[in-house]
């Protein structure tokens, strides 16, 4: 009896510790969001709250990508207290391409090269001060980069 109660109390403390971690700190890869096959799924799994279009989010990506297998993306922002920067390709089979988690030392300016299966809107989402901001751009792909 006593042992069971001890285990229960220990369990409760562990649960409390897990819940106490701030929401924005993923601490682990958000696998469900990366596996989601729709942009709505990605956003639902990853973020809560409305996303505001902002000219403070700078998304640099070519208008026309000749090779969908290698599309350079740069996202930077003038916003303060940036927690994360995500890149979402709306028409990709799994839209979430990358999520960069910032630290207090970070300067929010990242680049990465991504694959695009077809022409699509690309959205950069910045989480700053607990709020979500985004910027989108249509990218035309002449040769897709997902299949063979």
């Amino acid at each position, binding site marked *: 009896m006593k042992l069971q109660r001890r285990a229960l109390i220990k369990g409760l403390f562990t649960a409390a510790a897990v819940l106490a971690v701030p929401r924005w700190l993923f601490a682990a890869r958000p696998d469900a969001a990366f596996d989601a096959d729709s942009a709505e799924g990605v956003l639902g799994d990853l973020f809560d709250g409305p996303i505001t279009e902002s000219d403070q989010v700078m998304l640099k990506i070519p208008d026309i990508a000749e090779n969908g297998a290698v599309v350079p993306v740069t996202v930077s922002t003038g916003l303060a207290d940036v927690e994360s920067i995500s890149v979402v390709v709306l028409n990709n089979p799994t839209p979430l391409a990358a999520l960069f988690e910032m630290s207090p030392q970070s300067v929010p300016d*990242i680049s990465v090269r991504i694959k695009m299966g077809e022409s699509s809107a690309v959205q950069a989402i910045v989480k700053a001060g607990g709020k979500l901001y985004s910027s989108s751009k249509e990218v035309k792909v002449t040769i897709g980069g997902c299949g063979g």
Partner: protein
Amino acid sequence: MGKPIKIRAKIKGDIAEVKALMPHPMESGARIDADTGEPVPKHYIQEVICKHNGNIVNTAYWGTAVSKNPYMSFKFKGAKSGDKLEISWKDNTGDSSVSEIAFK
């Protein structure tokens, strides 16, 4: 063990600019092997951790849509000459790689 990560880093004023190139196939699972007609299994980097003198300054979580032989760049404050920068990745097969440089 994965191939070593190529790291280029320089300090401009107070800000360190880091560029990293990671040789990796980044198979999305959608590509068909031309010889066998079978899909090539998923094999991609899921997590990249960048540490400055042991402190995490940037964590990248990736899906299958990051290009083959991934390139990434990022910036952070507070680095000075002689400081260490370590970048490591883990992929979905459990493979990993880690490389370290010192700032000039």
